[in-house]
């Protein structure tokens, strides 16, 4: 039997007082610890100096963070060709970007400290590249180190508004945001407004990417996104909220809409042009909305603190060789930023040369506009962004 006499209290202060004293002690200890460390400011930009990415001998690991479906796979793919060209290198190709905001949020604490999370290259959309640069999270790139890029970059991409001197970004692929529609189950969807047709309730999705969704909706209502006012943006977001609450919209997605389209949980969605190559459903097609599309680019950027800038620069230059790029373009079906690819692909297969998704002609994109930010000052942009996030989170 247990000797219970030892279990009697030592007498003295009542239990409640003890707990209070202990709690007080813990609080004091915490305050002490907090005082001897910790930042006065959290968030905001990095206060490190902006460096220029240094070239050098190419070997070791190259870590890339990018979107899904952006590179050719299988025999003789680009990664294996790069590794053959530069023996001793290993390319770790991580398809872990599902959405710009999500990716940024995940990495932000490290980026602020000048750490890249082990990555040498991020592939992010124009506006996110600019945001990262403004916050001091990126290294600058000297085009003199990238002869292929200098020679072959498409002229219309040399001086984009967000990076007029191409100081910190090199386009990876461009694309169109339009719709992917299951022609068998939703034959009459030709405009973004058709997505709100109650006939397709619960079978429609849109992106979490504000700069694709809202401009498309503005276009569908006949408003030029570049001229739209903040109120018009907010109005569209209100419409979006209504559709979300009524169950018209099934979900807000990033790349994960592809699976829903494949197994027909979803019959139509706002979509990125090249993703049609990933949807494993014979009835699905990329549809250019009647009113036009948005144009965007995803860019390779080098984060501050990247461990292997030499390999990063080599990779950027490598993929701008038209022969290498041709393989990528053929596989991913996005708009290639490299000149000279159209000729190569036309030789392989004339139809490829005319593929509107890879080489859109003037007519195809006549109503398309470039991605735009919400109008106004930073505070206005924040207001619209916050409102959109609210609706998207549900």
């Amino acid at each position, binding site marked *: 039997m247990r000797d219970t006499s030892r279990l009697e209290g030592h007498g003295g202060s009542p239990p409640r007082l003890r707990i209070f004293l202990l709690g007080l002690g*813990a*609080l004091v*200890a*915490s*305050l002490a*610890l*907090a005082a001897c460390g*910790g930042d*006065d*400011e*959290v*968030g*905001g*930009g990095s206060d490190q100096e902006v460096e220029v990415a240094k070239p050098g001998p190419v070997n070791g690991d190259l870590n890339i963070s990018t979107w899904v479906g952006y590179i050719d796979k299988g025999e003789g793919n680009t990664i294996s060709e790069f590794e053959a060209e530069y023996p001793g290198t290993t390319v770790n190709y991580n398809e872990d970007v599902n959405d710009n*905001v*999500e990716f940024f*949020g*995940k990495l*932000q604490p490290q980026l602020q400290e000048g750490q890249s999370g082990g990555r040498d290259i991020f592939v992010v959309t124009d506006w996110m590249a600019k945001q990262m640069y403004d*916050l001091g999270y990126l290294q600058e790139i000297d085009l003199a180190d990238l002869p292929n890029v200098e020679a072959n970059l498409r002229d219309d991409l040399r001086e984009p508004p967000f990076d007029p001197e191409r100081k910190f970004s090199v386009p990876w692929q461009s694309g169109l945001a339009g719709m992917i529609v299951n022609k068998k189950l939703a034959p009459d969807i030709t405009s973004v407004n058709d997505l709100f047709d109650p006939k397709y*309730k*619960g079978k429609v999705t849109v992106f979490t990417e504000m700069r694709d969704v809202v401009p498309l909706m503005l276009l569908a209502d006949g408003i030029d996104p570049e001229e739209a006012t903040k109120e018009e943006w907010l109005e569209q977001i209100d419409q979006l909220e209504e559709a*979300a*609450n009524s*169950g018209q*919209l*099934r*979900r*807000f997605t990033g790349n994960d809409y592809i699976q829903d389209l494949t*197994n*027909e*949980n979803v019959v139509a969605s706002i979509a990125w042009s090249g993703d049609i190559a990933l949807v494993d459903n014979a009835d699905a097609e990329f549809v250019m909305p009647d009113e036009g599309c948005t144009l965007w680019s995803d860019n390779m950027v080098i984060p501050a603190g990247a461990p292997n800038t030499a390999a990063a620069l080599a990779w950027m230059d490598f993929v701008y060789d038209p022969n290498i790029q041709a393989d990528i373009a053929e596989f991913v079906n996005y708009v290639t930023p490299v000149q000279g690819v159209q000729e190569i692909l036309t030789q392989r297969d004339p139809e490829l040369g005319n593929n509107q998704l890879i080489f859109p002609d003037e007519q195809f994109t006549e109503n398309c506009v470039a991605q735009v930010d919400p109008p106004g000052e*930073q505070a206005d942009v*924040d207001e619209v962004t*916050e409102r959109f*996030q609210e609706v998207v*989170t*549900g």
Partner: protein
Amino acid sequence: MTGVRRRLAPYGLLGPGAIWLALFFVIPMYFMGELALREGTFTEGFRSAFEISNFSDSLSGNTEQLLRSFWYAGAATVIALLIAYPLAYAIALRAGRWKLLLLFAVIAPFFTTYLIRTIAWKTILADESPLLDVLHFLSLVPDDGRVLATSGAVIAGLTYNFLPFMILPIYASLERLDTSLIEAGKDLYASATQTFLRVTLPISMPGIVAGVLLTFIPAVGDYVNAELLGGTGTSMIGNVIQSLYLEQRNYPEAAALSFVMMAAILAVVLIYLRVAGTGAFMGEEEERR
């Protein structure tokens, strides 16, 4: 062992654990509190401040999701209880030689990752799946309706994932039931229902209370089920906090909302314990044995 060493012994044993918990549980809570009081924006930086309004702002801005979380978690808890109690009763008192096997089968799902289990439900509940065909046929789901990406799917996921937490405590308390008490009830001419209500139920009450708490509390803050099985308008408070922290980077609001959520859970739990009776949960009853 001398008197002093004996006095100090428990602190030595306690030391590592208490320090670890203090450093990595208590202090982070303090930091979260400090973060909740800051003001500013992400691009400018969040400065130390005393912005108490963050708490009320986060509550008023997210009341819908908070209430929805309680509704989903509550529904899941009730359904889990209705499934778990008969199951636990059957295993504890009626299973005989199958007891161990059934118990095993109940715990087994635990051994696949939480995420994979939930993703499996995505396959089972997909719009074109055989299960949906059956449900359409039985008119349990309208012909143009779906289960996935609705609140029903989220509640179903929550129920499923937390069922073992409900079953095990109830099983544990039922297992200690002295069957002679039930026989005594019969001897005294009580009906089966009366025996159940007067003998079995009260004795298993601590198990029920533990099970309800172990299910409800984590369910309210759940993130995965709403994310994978939900659609628009089904997000729970956990999803909002995640979004605020990792996507919108609005750290003060995220931290404030976390505290608000904990306070709300605490309030509900205290009310529940007052109604159901406490003591058993703190385990003091056991130690006096």
